[in-house]
């Protein structure tokens, strides 16, 4: 009489899934851009708007693209981590100032320090859409060929830095 035990079996499978589901975050969406070339853009630099920056300028280098904004609350949390990283001079950090006002952004960098080699201003958020940004901050690790190798959603923490980002950067730089 196997068929009468079937509902129980189905339920056990379901319960296992639900238990796994409890430890997943349904709101974190992995980026399909990982493993793909970083979308191209040319934007004016935040401090010197006459100068432009484009990811193609970075060919041959491993670099980080950090999406930030002065209005973003969790950016405050990751800011000291980025400052520390820039002091150690391991990998250049470039900033994408997302949907921000220039004056606010500059004040923010003046107050908290500027970890970026340079920042570009994505005032209307178009480049953000191109990069699949859905929450600020987000950080992309881009390799020498200009391919996105990793995307950190949410603030960079000392833990994510030592466990994921820095080993990856070292590996990419050695290539």
């Amino acid at each position: 009489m196997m068929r009468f035990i079937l509902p129980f079996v189905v339920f056990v499978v379901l319960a296992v899934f639900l238990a796994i589901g409890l430890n997943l975050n349904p709101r974190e969406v992995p980026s399909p851009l990982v493993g793909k070339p970083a979308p191209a853009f040319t934007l004016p630099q935040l401090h010197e708007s006459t100068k432009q920056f484009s990811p193609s300028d970075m060919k041959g280098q491993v670099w980080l693209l950090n999406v930030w904004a002065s209005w973003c609350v969790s950016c405050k949390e990751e800011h000291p981590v980025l400052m520390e990283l820039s002091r150690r001079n391991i990998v250049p950090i470039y900033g994408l100032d997302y949907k921000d006002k220039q004056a606010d952004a500059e004040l923010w960098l003046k107050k908290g320090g500027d970890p970026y080699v340079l920042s570009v201003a994505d005032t209307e958020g178009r480049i953000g859409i191109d990069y699949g940004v859905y929450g600020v901050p987000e950080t992309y690790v881009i390799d020498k060929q200009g391919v996105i190798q990793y995307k950190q959603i949410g603030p960079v923490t000392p833990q994510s830095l030592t466990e994921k980002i820095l080993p990856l950067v070292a590996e990419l730089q050695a290539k």
Partner: protein
Amino acid sequence: MIPEIGNFALIVGLFLAITLGVLPIVGAARNNAVLMGVARPLAAGQFVFLGVALLCLTYAFVANDFSVLYVAQHSNTQLPTIYRISAVWGGHEGSLLLWAFLLSVWTLAVALYSKHLPEEMVARVLGVMGLIAVGFLLFMLLTSNPFDRLLPAAADGRDLNPLLQDPGLVIHPPMLYMGYVGFSVAFAFAIAALLGGRLDATWARWSRPWTTVAWVFMTLGIALGSWWAYYELGWGGWWFWDPVENASFMPWLIGTALMHSLAVTEKRNAFKSWTVLLAITAFSLSLLGTFLVRSGVLTSVHSFASDPKRGIFILTFLVIVIGVSLLLFAWRAPKIGLGGKFDPLSRESLLLSNNVLLSVAAASVFIGTLYPLFMDALGQGKLSVGPPYFEAVFVPLMIPMILMMGLGPLARWKKVDAPELAKRVRWAFGAALVIALLLPLTMGEWNVMVSLGLLLAFWIITSVSLSLYERLAGRDDFMQRLHGQSLSYYGMQLAHLGVAVFIIGVTMVKGYETERDVRMDVGDVLNTGGYEFRFNGVTEEQGPNYVAGRGHVTISKDGKVVTELYPEKRQYNVSGMPMTEAAIDAGVLGDLYVSLGEPIPDSNGAWAVRVYIKPFVDWIWAGCLLMSLGGVLAISDRRYRIHNKRKAAAPLEEKTA
């Protein structure tokens, strides 16, 4: 002090529930009349203490006791009293208390209206319900106590979510929970029958009215929720296939299947194991819904603030309740007999096909709702499943179901003579087909989907009419024939007509609604759908706890004023949340629906205004209401009332218990 009394009452309630869950069941196993006899008094005690707990929490809300954390999180001194009361179930902890209280109401109801049942059955049913209450009360006391103190007390509360400050939301949760919890009765009857090995037509007859009552509440609860979404969210949608809506829809579908399956079991003593499985499933899905809403495993508009600890607790509870009952099922079901004989084509088989379709429909909702979770758990990435999926899968499943729904009540028990049935219904089907093909033409535009929807709706109407005609027409006295039919027969037909009315509403509004999103300066007019909408500007109004921009729109047709509408855009003082209050002129043939968007910057009082004309939209909820009324008629049937009379005639039974 009052919150402590509430807390104490909860704890007493827990101990009563534990006693109720243990003693009567042990008593039934040992045939000990004393142990079985405590079930009813315990049920009453549990009701009293949980009632006290609920009253204490309500008091804390009404008296603005912000030293209670839950009150401070969900209320505010500015909040009108009626919403302070409904705020009791406006959050996770309080809604759990409501759940537990309603469970005690159902338990008490079973205790009161079960005098005709064998004592051991009553003991087991009440015992199982007590065990369920234990789970919920433990959950509340260990992870989500609504009486937790906030020290020092907050000066004022954080206010109730403005979305919930609405008359519809005052009664929607209690109705819906009555439905969810009500399925625990059918569940308890099923478990009691499995425990006692007494699974027969009488069992089905006992659990049938309870199932129907729960189903009526659930139907009303879902309809109210949908109606609320329609007028409150500001863009006239009425169903979104959100995980939380699906969580209530799945038990509804299985509950509907259960009602029909119980009919076969009661009348023909057949398919008992299937019916029992449905009873277990309906309640299991209610519990699963609770888990989905409160654990945060799915993203939904309505989720409560999630907490992994709570998720683990409910999951454990779920595993114990559902796991044990399904094991019990696997152990006992093989011994259940087959019951009466019937042909592969008979009313029985039609009802069972309806069961298959309803269950598959519920399964499709289940798969769609949980698929993102399955994929994520298997490392297959994130995906979303939304309305396009559900519409593509659910609707095709409903078509054969509705077609069979017309045939079922016309078919005879035991054996259907197919050619004879076809001959009987050909005119009914033909009439439905003609109406469905022609009626859309009167709306100006013919479209396949509308015709299909109308065909289904009119097929129900004509087949119901045919059934009434066959039963009521004749040479002898019409009144006598009218009275000769049972109330449950009329109830069934009325509920089926409700489905038809519902389908008409859905079809017409999907096919012919118009929507305009316009910029209106003061004095501007919009001509659409044969109406003229004149925008007379927006004035500021002061609400009890909000400031509103109140628009004034005059609607006229052929130069005559039809109605004046006052849509509002509110800003709530405490939360600062903006809310759209649509203004609706409801009518049998359709609604005129106006909602305010945003003021246009740098203009002289111009606003973005959304205007919708929604033909027959109220038929959606009218249909649900008819279904519920059908359920009410069915349970008023003589055959269920007879027992009550017998109970009154035999008070002795009670004393010996």
